[in-house]
């Protein structure tokens, strides 16, 4: 691989070719929507999916909050559209093995069904989703509580069997209770899931549904309406504060004791309610996808304190990462519902389109320079650069290897300059200007930084 | 002076051996040695003298063994590889034999980090297995490690240690086999509290036929308190005290925990007698020597018989 070395520090804009191809990683609802939107924009798109089918987490649900269609219908339709679009290539049982190369031309090695595919991409969109973790059982032994996903599976079976028969009645029995604890940032998604399913059970004949929740987060669009509908159709909702509901296994079911805060406040009593239910439903915890650490290392991006991509750093625009040409959409960034994910995917598709539509990438040349004669090739810069903008190359002038700044990836943050133990890396701009610039009403030169 | 180790005679005669342990004083007070030894004298077949255990400086093992000989007690001299190179080890071994010491227990030795001179330079010129091999060669081939001929070879009864519960567990028996192959005739184990796990280990020992090639003495250390039990469990590598034992000590109460500890030791010894391939016990009553006679008696192992004291010099029987 040849490297154009720019020794001038004129801050000019360098021209780089750009691959027009886009790689989408993950075949869940975010990845599908992304691929479709990109195809509409006439981008050459490759979608890799680790499994053998598309749809991800949403595909496993039996209904979607905010949608008339079932997930099956919604995703089925989208997948069918994808199939007919020649601009989209889908690789199943695929995994991204290596990402190398320059901004605009990321060279990616993909392994799919045992075969290796290698291509250059102008952009990579990560849409690997979140994962659902079932909580630990509330009571030991039988009966056990079930997760929302399990309930959805049972509801789907019921629907398929037209809701008749003994086994069906057993799978979703008469008295069903949901317990939803406050889950911080995930609470909107949890509330939507619980309300949606509570309503679905309530709509079955002769069912009693209780929903005990800490905080009904109705922040999402339409959630308030969903909440009202659930209440109106007969779902009994209790709201607890600090005291968690006590759950105990009882004769063919559970006894749930919950302290309703508003009852306690209004009626000046302890507000304790005893419920008996045949089935207890607890929502799963939403956790970062299992491939997050792998991709983090491979793509050299950061994760936030809760191990999701992108979240919480104000400098990272919602889906565009610190690495030019690498984007993150959907559940891999945190818990979002399907409505939000679809909107986000469409918006990001436009951003990706704009990015790969450029003929040239603006690169300021020579801001950071390595002196190959001083470089000890200790790899410190390579390891500490947050933007993966350092590579080790052969330098003909010194006849050996040296660190080299990949200017298109470099953000001129100066971290490598500070880390280099050989003082082999210099911020050209900093020495001349930046570090000498003092602001305090007027700008003036602080001589001593430059001297010595 | 007998040419053959008294301990070896007991073991070779097929008797269930009992050995004790004596930690030399951190000073030159010989009375400490005599007092401790007096407790052990009638209760055990031989007394093991530690060699600066846990790397804390004490009276030398070789000198303490010589004092025991004066008291007509059979000593087992411990030799660790930490403090002496092959020159000093061989030299001290010859000296020990000259002083009438007939048993030697070869150990790697605790790292000096645990002792009172952590700044010391360690040696570890040989490891325990190489030390066993060296002594065997000196005895059987009358040769130094260098190959030079000895003038008179030390007829030492050679022992080694085994830590059944250290890691890697599967390798422990293989390592024992190496020690036996190198020439270890008796083995003292680390303190045993978990009998189930020890039985598993003994099965592995028997599967390799090691119990027929060497004498295994199970390590017994009576627990004095709940605190000691916890300390052993958490801080001593290779020692596992099952929770139910700790519970037993707790249940006994602070006053009677020591008595309960003695009772546990007695029961453990009795159990040991029933395990195939265990040829004796090594009672390590740390700073509690006065209770050893009682433990041994309650375990039904008193009085100790002196086996074959009139064995003719020169009749050799090495395991």
């Amino acid at each position, binding site marked *: 691989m040849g490297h154009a070395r720019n020794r001038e520090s004129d801050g000019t804009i360098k021209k780089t070719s750009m691959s027009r191809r886009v790689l989408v990683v993950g075949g869940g609802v975010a990845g599908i929507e992304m691929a479709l939107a990109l195809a509409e924009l006439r981008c050459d798109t490759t979608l890799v999916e680790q499994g053998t089918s598309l749809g991800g987490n949403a595909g496993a649900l039996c209904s979607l909050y905010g949608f008339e269609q079932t997930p099956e219908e919604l995703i089925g339709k989208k997948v069918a559209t994808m199939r007919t679009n020649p601009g989209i290539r889908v690789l199943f049982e695929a995994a991204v093995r290596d990402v190398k190369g320059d901004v605009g031309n990321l060279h990616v090695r993909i392994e799919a069904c045992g075969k290796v595919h290698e291509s250059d991409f102008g952009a990579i969109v990560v849409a690997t989703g979140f994962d659902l973790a079932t909580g630990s059982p509330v009571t030991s032994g039988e009966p056990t509580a079930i997760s929302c996903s399990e309930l959805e599976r049972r509801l789907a079976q019921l629907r398929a069997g037209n809701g008749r028969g003994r086994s069906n009645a057993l799978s979703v029995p008469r008295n069903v209770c949901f317990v939803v604890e406050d889950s911080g940032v995930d609470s909107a998604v949890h509330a939507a899931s619980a309300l949606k399913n509570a309503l679905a059970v309530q709509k079955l004949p002769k069912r009693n549904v209780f929903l005990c929740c800490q905080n009904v987060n109705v922040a999402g669009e339409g959630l308030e309406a969903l909440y009202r509908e659930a209440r109106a159709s007969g779902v009994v909702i209790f709201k607890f504060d600090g005291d968690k509901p006590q759950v105990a296994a009882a004769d063919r079911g559970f006894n749930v004791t919950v302290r309703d805060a508003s009852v306690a406040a209004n009626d000046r009593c302890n507000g304790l309610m005893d419920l008996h239910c045949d089935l207890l439903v607890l929502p799963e915890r939403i956790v970062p996808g299992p491939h997050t650490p792998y991709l983090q290392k491979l793509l050299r991006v*950061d994760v*936030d*304190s809760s191990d999701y991509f992108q979240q*919480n*750093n*104000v*400098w990272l625009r919602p889906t565009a990462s*610190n690495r030019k040409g690498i984007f993150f959409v959907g559940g891999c960034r945190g818990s979002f519902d399907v409505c939000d994910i679809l909107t986000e995917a469409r918006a990001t598709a436009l951003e990706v389109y704009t990015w790969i539509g450029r003929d040239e990438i603006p690169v300021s040349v020579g801001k950071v320079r390595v002196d190959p004669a001083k470089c000890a090739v200790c790899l410190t810069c390579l390891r*500490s650069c*947050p*933007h993966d903008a350092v590579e080790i190359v052969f330098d003909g002038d010194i006849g050996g290897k040296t660190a080299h700044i990949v200017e298109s990836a470099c*953000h*001129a*943050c*100066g*971290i490598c*300059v*500070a*880390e280099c133990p050989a003082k082999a890396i210099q*911020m050209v701009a*900093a020495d001349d200007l*930046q*570090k000498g*610039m*003092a*602001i*305090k*009403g007027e700008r003036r030169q*602080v001589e*001593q*930084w430059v001297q*010595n | 002076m007998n040419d053959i180790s008294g301990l070896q005679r007991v073991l070779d005669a097929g008797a269930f051996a009992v050995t004790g342990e004596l930690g030399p004083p951190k000073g030159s007070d010989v009375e400490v040695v005599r007092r401790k030894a007096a407790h052990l004298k009638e209760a055990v077949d031989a007394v093991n003298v530690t060699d600066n255990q846990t790397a804390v400086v004490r009276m030398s093992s070789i000198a303490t063994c010589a004092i025991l000989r004066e008291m007509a007690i059979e000593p087992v001299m411990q030799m660790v590889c930490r403090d002496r190179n092959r020159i000093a080890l061989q030299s001290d071994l010859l000296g020990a034999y000259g002083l009438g010491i007939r048993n030697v227990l070869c150990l790697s030795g605790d790292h000096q980090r645990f002792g009172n001179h952590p700044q010391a330079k360690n040696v570890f010129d040989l490891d325990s297995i190489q030390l066993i091999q060296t002594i065997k060669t000196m005895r059987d081939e009358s040769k130094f490690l260098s190959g030079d001929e000895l003038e008179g070879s030390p007829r030492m009864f050679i022992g080694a240690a085994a830590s059944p519960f250290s890691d890697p567990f599967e390798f422990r028996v293989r390592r024992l086999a190496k020690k036996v192959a190198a020439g270890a005739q008796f083995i003292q184990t680390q303190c045993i509290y978990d009998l189930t796990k020890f039985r598993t280990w003994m099965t592995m020992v028997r599967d390799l036929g090691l119990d027929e090639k060497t004498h295994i003495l199970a390590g017994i250390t009576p627990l004095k308190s709940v605190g000691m039990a916890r300390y052993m469990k958490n801080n001593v590598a290779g020692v596992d005290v099952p929770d139910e034992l700790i519970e037993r000590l707790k249940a006994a109460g602070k006053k009677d925990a020591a008595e309960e500890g003695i009772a546990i030791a007695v029961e453990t010894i009795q159990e040991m007698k029933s395990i195939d391939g265990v040829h004796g016990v090594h009672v390590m009553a740390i700073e509690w020597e006065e209770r050893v006679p009682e433990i041994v008696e309650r375990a039904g192992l008193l009085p100790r018989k002196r086996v074959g004291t009139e064995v003719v010099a020169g009749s050799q029987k090495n395991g």
Partner: protein
Amino acid sequence: MGTELKIVAFCCEHSGSLAARMACAGESETSAGTEIVSVPCSGSVQAADILKAFRSGADGVVIVGCHDGSCKHLVGNRRVQRRVEHLAGTLKEIGWNPERVAFFPVSAVEGQLFRDRLAEVVDRLRGLEAGR
């Protein structure tokens, strides 16, 4: 109030510098005696830069970067905090008060916070001066 203390503040151009500008917009006295040096990322400030400031007469050096999790370069603020801690230890070794060098985070819009944190540093250093 004794003689004016000289403080050098290395400020991240994405947060500290902007907050400093905000802090200075109203009144210029607050930060009199404070030299603001704008840097591309707090992570680019080396121990040597800080020592240079001391060599040229600074009484205290502060590094002002982004809040945790909000560094534009992801790890710069964390890296420099480690460096500051280490350097504070070295200063202690030569008999200096380690509090002469400090890191604090602000966001671009927290002019008041910048002023407050800087004032705290100045107060602490005044106390030190008195003790010296």
